[in-house]
């Protein structure tokens, strides 16, 4: 039997001991002594969230495909375990070998959302790796960060040795080879980092200096080491079918958030919503071939035994072979007790037909994401969805037997007026009226419409990266105005309105567009107990505000300030494919309310064509 790092006494006194024992189906088992490189892959959140992440599963499998690398996993110990590890002085360990993380060559941490930043420090701290890269010795692992938040790595700069900008499938091989070469030469940590800095897509923050103007904006950002390039260009897989994909995903013992086969059908998005970071940084859209997806769907269902398969992409309806793929899956899984889940589908006749085949219409709900309440504001944010499309889709759905609708909105987007805010309630009311206008024998008895709004957080590498964010008070004022408007609606009894936490969105705004001066605040907050900030019950806004005070950092500088278009932004050294000129153009068009066509309607010249693949090279362009 595998040795466990923790005793029964400890494991049986925490929630979900299975979070800490590994041993899942399809786990990689290797002899660490025979490996040149031991890599510990981390998702800095609780196991059930981390295990649901596709990217880690791909990299885990890809790394373990090498004979010289053993990739293992670690997740944030939940608060009960965190406490025990500290009390009993037990170092954090990887799930596979149960060996301390500190003994590894690499610790790779994926940065999927800003609110996990304190958990990054928790992982380092519990592993007994110095929080600051500058304090690490030859004996410490190389700490490398990746994922969407690495597109503005600056608030985390002091804590990481390397950031990997872009898609992980491309240059890890080069990095491992450089590490092995250095190790066999007896080279130093610094020499290795210099070699890493020369690999495309890799950013070594210690090799760059930042200076600031008297108004607090960045004066200069430049390399201090001859091996570090001025610009770091994101890495990207040009042909998805050639990239590594998993045949045997890990199957956890306990129920995790994504307890199903996840089939990534495409990467990127043609839509160009102006608030959306993923839609910009993953450009251009690249599709998997139909044959490839059929093959992997069958293999992964077989190797996992999962009872559900989910198609993953930013906008599944844009996949060019969707009807063929869904037709295949319906044939393949029929009678096998396997469900198909289809998130991010545009509601139309086709999707309703498909959904009626794969789900229980009476129990399921339909989701629309208009993001804004009025057509004017939807044009500003470049969200192509029209009121007619929503109401037509809803009417067809009601005729098909659905009676529950979810509507997603965002409050606080640029140029938003009170009319736009009230529009959220008006649009929801219209959906309800569409239902009650139908003859009673052609629909269910009652309709239930749940509208929820999140608060807009401007993100780097979007046309809204210059936008002013609302204050907490302003966010709440807007949410209350929407709430009150809902109460005035004729069908108020069929409508429900929820809104998110405003504090959290403000803090997310600071971390998203922060610079290196925000790092001490994260550390200060962590030292005072901030952790699992994305979990409502653990988030303590006062603690964070005290940390800003203690560090003399003004959060408003990062959120509510007007940014000049010529200001040097903390992430300007990264080339994400979409050019700054394009983003400026889009920002201007937004303020004019001008819609930009999607990539298949016409090229908007975003800059991602330089990668030489994807939608940019589909015949019509």
């Amino acid at each position, binding site marked *: 039997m595998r040795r466990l790092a923790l005793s029964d006494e400890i494991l*049986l006194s925490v929630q979900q001991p299975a979070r800490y024992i590994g041993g899942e189906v399809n786990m990689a088992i290797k002899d660490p002594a025979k490996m040149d490189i031991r890599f510990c892959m981390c998702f800095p959140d609780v196991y059930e969230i981390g295990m649901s992440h596709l990217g880690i599963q791909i990299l885990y499998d890809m790394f373990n495909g090498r004979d010289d690398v053993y990739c293992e996993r670690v997740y944030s110990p939940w608060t009960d375990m965190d406490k025990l590890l500290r009390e009993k002085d037990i170092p954090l360990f990887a799930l596979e070998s149960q060996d301390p993380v500190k003994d590894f060559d690499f610790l790779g941490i994926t940065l999927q959302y800003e609110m996990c930043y304190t958990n990054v420090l928790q992982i380092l701290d519990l592993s007994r790796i110095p929080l600051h890269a500058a304090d690490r010795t030859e004996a410490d692992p190389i700490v490398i960060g990746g994922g969407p938040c690495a597109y503005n790595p600056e608030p985390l700069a002091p804590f990481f040795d390397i950031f990997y900008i872009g898609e992980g499938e491309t240059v890890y091989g080069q990095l491992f080879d450089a590490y092995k070469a250095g190790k066999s030469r007896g080279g130093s940590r610094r020499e290795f980092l210099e070699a890493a800095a020369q690999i495309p897509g890799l950013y070594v923050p210690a090799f760059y200096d930042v200076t600031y103007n008297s108004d607090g904006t960045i004066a200069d950002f430049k390399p201090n080491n001859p091996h570090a390039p001025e610009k770091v260009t994101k890495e990207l897989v040009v042909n998805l079918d050639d990239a590594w994909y998993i045949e045997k995903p890990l199957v956890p013992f306990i129920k995790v958030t994504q307890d199903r086969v996840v089939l990534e059908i495409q990467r990127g998005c043609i839509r160009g919503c102006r608030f959306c970071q993923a839609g910009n940084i993953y450009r251009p859209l690249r599709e998997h071939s139909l044959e490839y997806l059929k093959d992997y769907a069958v293999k992964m269902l077989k190797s996992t035994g999962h009872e559900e398969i989910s198609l993953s992409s930013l906008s599944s309806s844009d996949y060019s072979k969707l009807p063929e793929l869904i037709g295949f899956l319906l044939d393949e899984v029929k009678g096998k007790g396997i469900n198909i889940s289809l998130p991010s589908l545009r509601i139309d006749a086709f999707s309703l037909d498909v959904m009626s085949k794969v789900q229980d219409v009476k129990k399921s709900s339909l989701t629309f994401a208009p993001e804004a309440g009025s057509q004017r504001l939807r044009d500003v944010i470049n969200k192509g969805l029209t009121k007619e499309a929503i109401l037509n889709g809803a009417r067809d759905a009601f005729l098909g037997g659905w009676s529950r609708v979810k509507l997603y909105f965002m409050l606080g987007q640029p140029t938003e007026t009170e009319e736009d805010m009230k529009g959220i309630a008006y649009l929801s009311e219209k959906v309800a009226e569409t239902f009650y206008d139908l003859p009673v024998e052609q629909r269910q008895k009652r309709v239930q419409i749940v509208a929820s709004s999140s608060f807009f957080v401007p993100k780097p590498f979007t046309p809204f990266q210059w936008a002013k964010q609302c204050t907490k008070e302003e966010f709440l004022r807007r949410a209350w105005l929407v709430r009150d408007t809902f109460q005035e609606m004729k069908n108020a009894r069929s409508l429900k309105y929820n809104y998110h936490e405003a504090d959290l969105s403000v803090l997310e705004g600071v971390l998203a567009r922060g610079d290196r001066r925000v790092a001490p605040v994260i550390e200060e907050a962590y030292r005072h107990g901030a952790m699992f900030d994305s979990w409502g019950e653990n988030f303590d806004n006062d603690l964070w505000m005290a940390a800003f005070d203690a560090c003399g950092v003004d959060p408003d500088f990062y959120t509510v300030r007007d940014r000049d278009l010529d200001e040097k932004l903390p992430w300007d050294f990264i080339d994400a494919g979409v050019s700054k000129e394009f983003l400026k153009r889009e920002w201007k068009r937004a303020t004019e309310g001008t819609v930009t066509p999607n990539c298949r309607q016409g090229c908007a010249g975003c800059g991602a064509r330089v990668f030489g693949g994807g939608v940019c090279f589909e015949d019509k362009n």
Partner: protein
Amino acid sequence: MKFIGHLDIMRYFQKVMRRADVDICYSGGFSPHQIMSFAAPLGVGLLSNGEYLDIEVNSTDSSAEMIRRMNAVMSEGMEVISYRRLDDSAKSAMSLVAAADYVLAFRPGKKPEDMESFFAALAEFYAQPQIPVTKKTKHGEKEMDLKPLIYRMERVRAVPDEECLAADSHCAGVSDRLSPPDSAAGQDCGVPGAAALNEKKLPVIISGAVNVPSDAVFLQVCTGSTDNIKPELVMKALYDFMGLELAPFTFQAEREEVYADLGGEEEGGRKLVPLEALGENIEQTDHYQA
């Protein structure tokens, strides 16, 4: 495996069925589920040397082949050791469960200083005409007499591993006073008529690691839906009797066998047979009418 709760073990086996392409029957409806049930949920923290679950299938290969297929997709610490056919009219394992054997071993560092006097006290405890305890239930506390529900309670000594491996998979310990009674009991009772044994319901036995402790406590207790006695409750009563506090994590319990009672209500009393004995080996591939 002992850290995985019962519901997750069920989910685990549902996925095993799909990975191994077991032609299991599904219920109808929009979210069909597999026809599968466990004989007796095992508490978190307990080891087991054999659990039973019933499944219904449309077709099957031989027992040997099905065991091979399932074990090919199993994770470490879990193994299918038996796959047997049950009569179509057989009651579910869950409704048949009447008793279970447990071996409770002292965890490292938790042994009493004087083992002999511990077991002397144990014998004295078990010899009492009545063993009154208070059992915590959902509705508060309940007074009950444990004595008639503890079928056996005694000391077991270590059996060398080789000996155990040479014997059948149920070999877990040898009773201090009796020769291994379990398999013998099974043979005595036999199975309810070979003719009645044919289709569809198949028990599967899950095996954990066989941990054979020296100086451990053997318990056979009433198990099932009416009176489900957990070993912890018995040990708590024993320690109360000895005037000692039962510290948490004193014992590691392992379930060794689960029984049905074929004795009936009237005379004679209990006739316990391992659930294993209720099924028959499948020699070749078989298809059943839906």
